[in-house]
């Protein structure tokens, strides 16, 4: 597969390769960008299915959902949300660093994004473990109870909430894990000086992906943690 170097007068250390089937660097960048956006649209549809299931069941069994969602930890959820939003900030800064050609900063901000993303995942793992211990994982051992030990309202339908909780946050976490893997790759490339003002498309496009994952969480957080905090019937 033949490839050829593009004009990179801005930074002589960065050489971008144009793949053989593209006529110009512009065409390649446009194609990659459109491709990433189309991919994100498919992700919207993918998550959308579960959001649909959530809305349908929430509307059908409001008491169960209110009762079950009160068992999520508001503090942990809010903390994780903050962590993830910060990671979007560091990612945006990484992209900017690439645009202005500051190699060390690219690496720094990518590492920070990695750490923040890893923190999020770690906290999630803790939450999952906690739910397991408290018998809130749907299955044979399911036994949802509130703080006072009283059983959750409408126990026949509360497993649905938790099933959606695990399904939606699990899918989200999977996307983050993939993202973490890609960050590692980007870090290794950035350290070799692969990205600069003339070409930093992978960083930019990954930034889009990371922001998307963040946005999904910003929808998940209120739906799973914030709803009906005050509306549980006594």
């Amino acid at each position: 597969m033949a490839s050829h170097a593009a004009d990179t007068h801005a930074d002589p250390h960065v050489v971008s390769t144009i793949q053989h089937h593209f006529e110009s660097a512009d065409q390649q960048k446009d194609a990659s960008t459109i491709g990433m956006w189309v991919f994100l649209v498919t992700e919207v549809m993918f998550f959308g299915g579960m959001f649909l299931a959530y809305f349908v069941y929430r509307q059908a069994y409001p008491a169960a959902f209110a009762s079950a969602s009160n068992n999520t930890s508001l503090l942990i959820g809010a903390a994780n949300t903050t962590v993830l939003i910060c990671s979007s900030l560091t990612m945006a800064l990484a992209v900017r660093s690439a645009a202005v050609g500051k190699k060390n900063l690219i690496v720094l901000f990518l590492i920070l994004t990695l750490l923040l993303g890893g923190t999020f995942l770690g906290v999630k793992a803790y939450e999952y473990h906690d739910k397991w211990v408290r018998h809130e994982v749907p299955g044979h051992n399911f036994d949802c109870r509130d703080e006072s030990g009283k059983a959750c309202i409408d126990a026949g339908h509360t497993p649905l909430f938790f099933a959606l909780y695990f399904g939606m946050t699990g899918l989200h976490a999977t996307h983050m894990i993939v993202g973490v893997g890609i960050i590692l790759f980007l870090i290794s490339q950035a350290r070799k000086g692969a990205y600069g003002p003339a070409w930093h498309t992978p960083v930019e496009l990954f930034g889009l992906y990371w922001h998307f994952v963040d946005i999904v969480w910003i929808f998940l957080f209120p739906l799973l943690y914030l709803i009906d905090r005050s509306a549980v019937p006594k």
Partner: protein
Amino acid sequence: MITATPPVETKKNYLNQTEGLKSWLLTHDHKRIAILYLLGLIFFFAIGGVFAALIRLELATPAGDLVESNTYNKLFTMHGIIMVFLFLVPSIPAMLGNFLIPLMIGAKDVAFPRVNLLSWYIYVVGGLFVLVALLMGGVDTGWTFYTPFSSSYSNGYVVATGLGVLIGGFSSILTGLNFIVTIHRMRAPGLTWFRLPLFVWAHYATSMLQVLGTPVIAVTLFLLVLERGLHIGFFDPAYGGDPVLFQHMFWFYSHPAVYIMILPSMGVVTEIVTTFSWKKPFGYTFIAFSSIAIAVFGFIVWGHHLFVSGQSAYAGMVFSILSYVVAIPSAIKVFNWTATMYKGSVRATAPMLYALGFIGLFTIGGLTGLFLASLGMDVHLTDSYFVIAHFHYVMVGGAIMGFMGGIHLWWPKIFGRMYSEAWARVAAIIIFIGFNLTFFPQFILGYMGMPRRYHVYPPEFQVLNVLSSAGASILGLGYLIPVCYLVWSLKYGPVAPPNPWGATGLEWQTSSPPPTENFEVTPVVTQEAYTYTSEEVVHVG
């Protein structure tokens, strides 16, 4: 005036440029990837076809005397899953689309060649899951996987099969993604949107469907797999879930999926009809926009599969009227193809016979869809053989006839050889006759009330079933014939010129088979599509 000059036999093209298994399995060339897909498609079509044969054999008698019920249920399930997900959905886009779109737009390849190869591997992995599930014992839920039967009662390998379909879906998504970017960004200079061949428009619309619809079935199957594995009640009322929600989510993809299966075929038919009428298509703009309209409206009619499911009557009304709206663009295409032939210079070649067969059979299939879109009529006809006849008319009489026509039209381009025109016409006619004999009686059976997915049936339905089974044997024979003469042509067929049919389109401006980089020089487009001039006339052998 004959213009063709046979190319030099030993000239390098994409087939012989490099050799060895690795050069094929690690190729980035869209043309080789198309061939890889073709091999998979033939494989799965054969398996699905064998199951169809067994089904029709069993149904020749009212009693269940060939196989037992569980086996029969697995036969029709696997037939459906393999034919829909592993054959029809990928067939034209992943094979003909992959091969032709870059050529038709004057590009060297698709936008993301490595993603293209990945798509093929994902298809293979998905197919393997289904194959392994099949060998372990198969699944018996029907290709529609309705819950709670599939989630909590079936003894089949639902998880493995569901995962296989889920994985295969990603192949479809990536192909669609690739085509969208390719069509947007890789067109040759001068090739504006309204100079594109209608085959490309059809694939653009298909890609929209693939990209937007397939993720929904992926997540639906994902939830089904979770439910079955972990007994979570997404869709099973015993655990608090709603089985009708599954149906909504399933059909939200699976209805657009039928347009994924038919739109590319319609694109092929447009190419064939214009080529062999030697005339530009009547109503180019209407045909182009009708593809987009079908894609858009195709997303809002899924509820017509749920008319008797317990869905509200008002929802039924909305879905019914929208289902009529979506039929109109297809009708426009049929009229436009017919009008294209008017005062053209028509040649009844094998591809043209397939295209004409498509037009007739798709018309019948589409019209019978109108029966099902009518609420009061659907209550009687749904879940009966009428539905089976309807969708086989559009899927086999439509989509597969288009696929066969396309294979024949572009065979010289893809493999550099001409096939036997006489045998090809014979096969097309046998397929047409066999098809009608197989499926027309099923309309009558359906109105009579014969249910679908029935292993045994009341004796008064037997005569029509026997006719149908007889037709199936003719149809099966019809499909075997092309395998023979097409394979034969690879070695013994006359070498093909660049443009054996005198067609327009950039793919015909390069050699047959094309070189790896498609064009020696990037073409520049200066005229409208489908501009037929006298110099293009060529004889067909």
